[in-house]
C-alpha cells in the first residue's frame, strides 16, 4: 500500500504542478456495487475563491490508471479534491 501511496502522491503533484498540495491520502475500499476502488483524497492550498483547473482534473483517472500496479492495479481511482479550509472543517465535524 505504501508503494501505491507514493505513486499516487507523486502523480498528483506532477499533474497539478503549480498547485500547493497539502496532502494526498489513499484508502482501498469498495463502492456501493461491491467493486474495488481506491479512495484518493487530495487536499490543496490555494487562495480563497480560487479553484483547480477542471481541464486537468477531468483526465486524472485516465492518466493514473496505467500507473497503478500490483493488487490494486484494477481498482478504480476515486478522487476527492478538498481545499485545506474545507478539509479542516470536515476533520473537526468528524471528531
Amino acid at each position, binding site marked *: 500500500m505504501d508503494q501505491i501511496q507514493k505513486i499516487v502522491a507523486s502523480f498528483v503533484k506532477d499533474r497539478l504542478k503549480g498547485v500547493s498540495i497539502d496532502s494526498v491520502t489513499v484508502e482501498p475500499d469498495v*463502492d*456501493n*456495487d461491491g*467493486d474495488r*476502488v481506491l479512495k484518493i483524497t487530495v487536499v490543496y492550498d490555494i487562495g480563497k475563491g480560487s*479553484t*483547480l483547473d*477542471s*481541464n*486537468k*482534473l*477531468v*483526465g486524472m*483517472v*485516465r492518466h493514473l490508471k496505467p500507473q497503478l500496479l500490483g493488487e490494486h492495479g484494477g481498482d*478504480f481511482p*476515486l*478522487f*476527492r*479534491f*478538498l*481545499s485545506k*479550509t*474545507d*478539509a479542516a*472543517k*470536515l476533520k473537526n*465535524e*468528524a471528531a
Partner: protein
Amino acid sequence: MKPLDLISSARLLINSDKGKPSQVNLRRSLSSAYYAMFHCLARTSADLLVGGPSAEKSKHAWQQVYRAVEHSATKNACKDKIIRDFPKPIEDFANTFVTMQTKRHSADYDPFFTLVKSEVLHDIDTIESAIKYSRARQLKISALFVHLYYLKKEARRAVAGAFGLCGGWLAGWLYACRQASVQIFYIIYKFPFASCQLVAPINAGIHPS
C-alpha cells in the same frame, strides 16, 4: 430538459446559502450534476439510434431508448477495458461517469457521507468539462457501445417497431453485435471513415490533454 441546465441547477443549489452551504444543498447539487451526465448520455443515445425526437413517427422509440439507459449497466460499460481504445474525451467522460455515480450514490443514500463546497464545485466543473469535450460525434460512438451491450429488450423492440424492417434489421444487428463480444467495436472504431471523424477533433486541439 437539457443536460447543461442541470449543471446550472447544481450551481444554484451550491450558491443558495450565504457562506457555508447546507449538507442537503450540497448533496442535491452533486446529484444534479451527475444527472447532467446521465441525461447527456441518454439523449445522445436516443438521437443516435432513433434520429432525434422531432419526427412524430419515432417519438415513442426515442423516448424508449432515452429511458432504457440504466445507471448500473452504464457504469459497468464505462469501466470496461475497451473504453481505453476510444478517444480521450470518451474515456474521460466514462471515468467521470463512474466517479460521479459512486459519489451520487453516497450523497443520496449514505447518511454519514459529508460533502464540502470546494469538492462539489470541482465535481461540477469536471462534469461540465467532460460533457463539453465529448459532446461532438465522439460521444455517439460511446453511446453506441453502451447500447449494444446494455440496452433493455423493450427498447430494442421499440426501435424495431418504429422502423419496421429496417428496425428489425437494426435490432437483429444489435443482438448479433452483443453476442459477438467486443470485436465489432474495434471494427467500428478502426473503420477508416469513423477513425477520421473521431481523431480529427482531437488533433485539432479540442481536448486539452
